């Protein structure tokens, strides 16, 4: 791969109790690019991105083997701190989940718990984050309004702004548009294109056209395995693996 790898897995296996959800996954995710993970339900794609910021740790019965290397260090080493990791690797979920607070407080929340108290600094972080999430112009006059008063698409962009506020390096997105209408989806997709100039974006999506539109690299997963990983154009024009071909052309899944 010609681009610098920011996060990689080596022989990653994950079990939920007796169920093996990931099987020997080795992937190298390039920095400042969008990587899409596709595959049928239950193939392990969400499980994989949840490994990248140790979101699976909290699940009872979850066991992990192998390595997840972020900046050359295994994030599952004993000394690694999941809280600081989750600041550097942020996540946006399927359903927008703003806190029941004001728009401003939603964005300022992260920086605050990381110790920033100065109002002017917080103001500038909030503005900058909302600008980067392409939401500033729509909410600048109503920052004190409740976040829940926003539309679904705006709420999702607010969640992205909230993630950006703590200056992450990697943004994980788990089906970020599946609860949005086509116009809101187009806005989020446009935003993803902007974000990759500064961040590594990893997106899980069921929408094949979306993966093809927004990503530079695509990984196809099936039954916990990474079947094929390559440039998005190659995967969608002439995939090498028959399973990938059959899945993306709708012959199963």
């Amino acid at each position, binding site marked *: 791969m010609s681009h610098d790898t920011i996060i990689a897995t080596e022989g990653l296996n994950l079990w939920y109790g007796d169920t093996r959800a990931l099987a020997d996954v080795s992937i190298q995710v390039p920095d400042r690019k969008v990587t899409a993970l596709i595959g049928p339900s239950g193939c392990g794609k969400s499980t994989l991105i949840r490994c990248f910021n140790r979101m699976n740790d909290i699940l009872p019965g979850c066991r992990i083997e192998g390595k997840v290397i972020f900046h050359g260090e295994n994030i599952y080493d004993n000394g690694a701190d999941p809280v600081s990791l989750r600041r550097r690797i942020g996540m946006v979920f399927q359903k927008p989940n703003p806190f029941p607070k004001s728009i401003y407080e939603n964005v300022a929340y992260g920086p605050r718990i990381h110790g920033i108290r100065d109002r002017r600094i917080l103001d500038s972080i909030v503005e900058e984050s909302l600008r980067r999430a392409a939401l500033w112009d729509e909410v600048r006059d109503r920052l004190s309004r409740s976040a829940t008063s926003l539309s679904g698409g705006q709420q999702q962009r607010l969640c992205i702004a909230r993630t950006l506020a703590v200056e992450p390096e990697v943004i994980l997105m788990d089906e970020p548009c599946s609860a949005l209408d086509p116009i809101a989806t187009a806005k989020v997709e446009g935003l993803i294109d902007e974000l990759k100039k500064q961040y590594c974006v990893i997106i899980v999506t069921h929408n*094949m*056209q979306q993966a*093809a539109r927004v990503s530079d690299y695509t990984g196809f997963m099936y039954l916990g395995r990474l079947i094929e990983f390559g440039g998005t154009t190659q*995967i*969608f*024009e*002439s*995939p090498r693996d028959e399973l*990938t*071909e059959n899945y*993306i*052309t*709708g*012959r199963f899944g």
Partner: protein
Amino acid sequence: MKDKFHDEMARMRAGVLEMGFFAEQMLSDAMRALQENDTELAREVKERKARLSGQNDTLEEDAYRLIALYQPVARDMREIACALKIISSAERIGRYGKDTAGVVLSLGNTRPDDLVAALSLPHMGKLVLSMIDDALHAYETGDLELIAHHSGRDDVVDALRHTIFREGITYMMEDPRTITRCTNYLMVARYLERCADHACKIAEMVHYLVTGERIEIR
């Protein structure tokens, strides 16, 4: 939904094949009309052009509709790209058949036909028709062996066209009364050479369809 899509794709593919063989038949019959001085057959070939255009329009619309409705990827995408290219080559081949039939009609049924054979046009026609036929059968079956030598076969056709051109000039210099006939026959050689190029275009697309790799056959 996807099954409906693949049913429609199969129908489009069958339509493309039908059109391809229809165009091949137009060229084949036009060559026969030329050799046998059969103006009746030539007239009939000319009339088939309307049907050829109709097939082209229908298939093109089908392809655009499938793209718009299903946003196909991978082999499905290649299948549609291939269909669009093949029908445009097939349309050209059919039209060259029509143009050849036009030559037969313009020369009338009283011409001596010795020059057609002397200039090796039937031989050239056979070579070109077999290239078209193999390319279409490769599309039908996915058997790339059928198109493995299209580049070399195209070279033979190109060389033949140059030979025919030189010989034609010689005949015309020897006997100016042959000028009208010869210039028309040289046009036919040119049509055939273009048809061989279209056979190569079809072969390139079939290769892309089957392997996902683009190649250039020259």
